[in-house]
């Protein structure tokens, strides 16, 4: 470092310029597909295969996608699939939180024989490709009548959401000083009260983070919905692909519009709970 820089002053050299260019290049590379999809979603059927950036944009595709009742263009009612997705994923996250929060607390606070193995087993659900279990699941779901049901989807999505919730929240509970709950015990509260009154409010940022991530992973899941649902409980990820036409015409512009609509709910959720994602709430609880 040859000389001091004034605040706000930038060092100007060939290296930094190249680095900046590389970053810009990376952004273009990774954002271009999204830009392409947005452009595609605004094109008319006649323009959909053109590669020109100059065209007359229209919002018609969005209304076509949302008003398609699964009769005219595709075999799936897109807007009801959207609602089903919200119910499936919301339900799956809710169940995961209800069961996963106490599980994460127990796993974070108490070590017992095999507790690490148990946690690892739970995480390993995320390693295995879903295709590995999908065939037996398909057979079982058909047998016990869970095929193409919301309950069945919420259940199978636990494979996606539960490990996330438990693993993320376990580390939050581990970071929480045990003294706090012990103080509550000595204040005269039961263990359950100490958990609800002291520990739970302090991991709220963790709950928000875990819920958001779990929701996104569940939302993006494709394989389970593809195999385990038909028309009643099918999700938006499957519904999008229907616009590519199974044998009929492929509507690229409608597919793009559907994909954009499908990307909105996780985005809105993320923006809504972002303020709960701040950590450091427990600062000041115990000495630094």
């Amino acid at each position, binding site marked *: 470092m040859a000389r001091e820089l004034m605040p706000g002053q930038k060092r100007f050299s060939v290296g930094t310029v190249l680095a900046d260019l590389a970053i810009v290049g990376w952004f273009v590379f990774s954002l271009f597909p999204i830009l392409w999809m947005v452009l595609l979603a605004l094109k008319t059927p006649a323009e959909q295969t053109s590669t020109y950036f100059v065209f007359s944009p229209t919002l018609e595709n969005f209304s076509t996608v949302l008003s398609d009742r699964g009769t005219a263009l595709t075999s799936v009612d897109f807007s009801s699939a959207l609602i089903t997705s919200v119910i499936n994923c919301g339900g799956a996250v809710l169940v995961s939180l209800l069961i996963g929060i106490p599980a994460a607390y127990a796993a974070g606070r108490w070590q017992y024989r095999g507790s690490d193995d148990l946690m690892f087993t739970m995480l390993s659900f995320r390693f295995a490709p879903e295709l590995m279990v999908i065939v037996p699941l398909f057979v079982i779901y058909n047998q016990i009548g869970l095929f193409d049901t919301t309950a069945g989807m919420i259940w199978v999505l636990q494979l996606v959401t539960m490990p996330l919730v438990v693993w993320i929240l376990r580390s939050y509970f581990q970071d929480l*000083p045990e003294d*706090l709950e012990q103080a509550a015990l000595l204040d005269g509260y039961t263990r359950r009260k100490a958990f609800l009154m002291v520990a739970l409010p302090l991991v709220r940022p963790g709950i928000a983070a875990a819920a958001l991530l779990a929701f996104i992973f569940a939302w993006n899941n494709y394989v389970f919905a593809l195999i385990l649902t038909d028309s009643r409980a099918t999700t938006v990820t499957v519904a999008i692909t229907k616009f590519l036409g199974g044998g009929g015409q492929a509507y690229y512009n409608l597919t793009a519009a559907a994909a954009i609509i499908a990307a909105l709910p996780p985005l809105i959720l993320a923006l809504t709970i972002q303020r709960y994602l701040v950590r450091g709430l427990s600062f000041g609880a115990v000495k630094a």
Partner: protein
Amino acid sequence: MGALEVRGLRKTYGKTTALENLDLAVENGEFFVVLGPSGAGKTTTLKSVAGLVEIDKGTVEISGRDVTSAEPYHRNVAMAFESYALYPQKTVFENLASPLKSGRSGKYSADDQRRRITAVTTTLGISHLLNRFPRELSNGQRQRVALGRVLVRPADIYLLDEPLSHLDAKLRSAMRAELKQLGEMSDTTTLYVTHDYQEALALGDRIAVLREGRLVQIGTPEEVWKRPVDTFVAKALGQPEINLLPAEVEHGQIHTAGGAVQLAVPPGLDVVAGTRLRVGVRPRDIELSRTQADDAVLCMYGTVRLAERLGRLVELTVALGDDTSVIVVTSSDRAAHEGEAVELAVRLEHVHLFAGDDAGEETARLGSASTKERQQG
């Protein structure tokens, strides 16, 4: 209010033993200090009494009731944690109200709660902080709030874990004086844990010294100070540490290697010629004297190697021979200069005799060098 009795307490964490066969009997209303270095098992002792750790063996009785297997919230004890453990999402007022709202330390109306909280925060000087959150407080203020959460409620026993350790020196001595004057403290049985010998001596009705999970000595501050059972206790109390000089018995005399210290074997001390001993003298008990020595005084001659001025006091390192030196603390107006030859005098009852050691282990005290004092075993 209540007595505490701990018998045969044993607690292990995995393979490490935190406490081994610990017996404590604390009387009703007593201020009992547990003193020991870090890792001695002090906090484990408190948490065992509070029921926050599961003990492996032994019993805990509070007010004559066996609570060994009782839940913490059934024991009616209050504890100030070393880490403060204030609820970060609650204000100071809510923190202090927490034990009053649980319903297990008595029923309090909103007015009663407010009255109690006002009383305790006034005493502790934190009444202006009621609406603040713990993160907005200094360490000293947090410590007071943690203490307040204990004092705000009646309890059989108060458990205080190093409540002054994170304060700066000035605040610590001020708080030490305050603690002693708190009415609640003097009425309620208190188990106080510290590694600071000055706190222990100043506050304790009695002191228990812990070392590596075992009880070394229990006694009043005076007993522990004047008759430490072994070199560990002797070294634990006092700063700078007690001087320990290796010595040997010969011809009815105890003398150190260089011959700088010569003592008559006191009557009642049963040692044969050739026995190895250690002579212990506290730095504060050594006087710089130029007066004629009498019989009840041990005299040593040496040269001042180092003089460190510590305000009102001066710490001198005095070489007694080629390889023996002692630390002397004396008031600065009578201090000697570096290089000066001095005569040191210690009253014989302040000369402690310990058994000889092998490679730095702690050894038992055999008695003092006094010719009058009855020898203690």
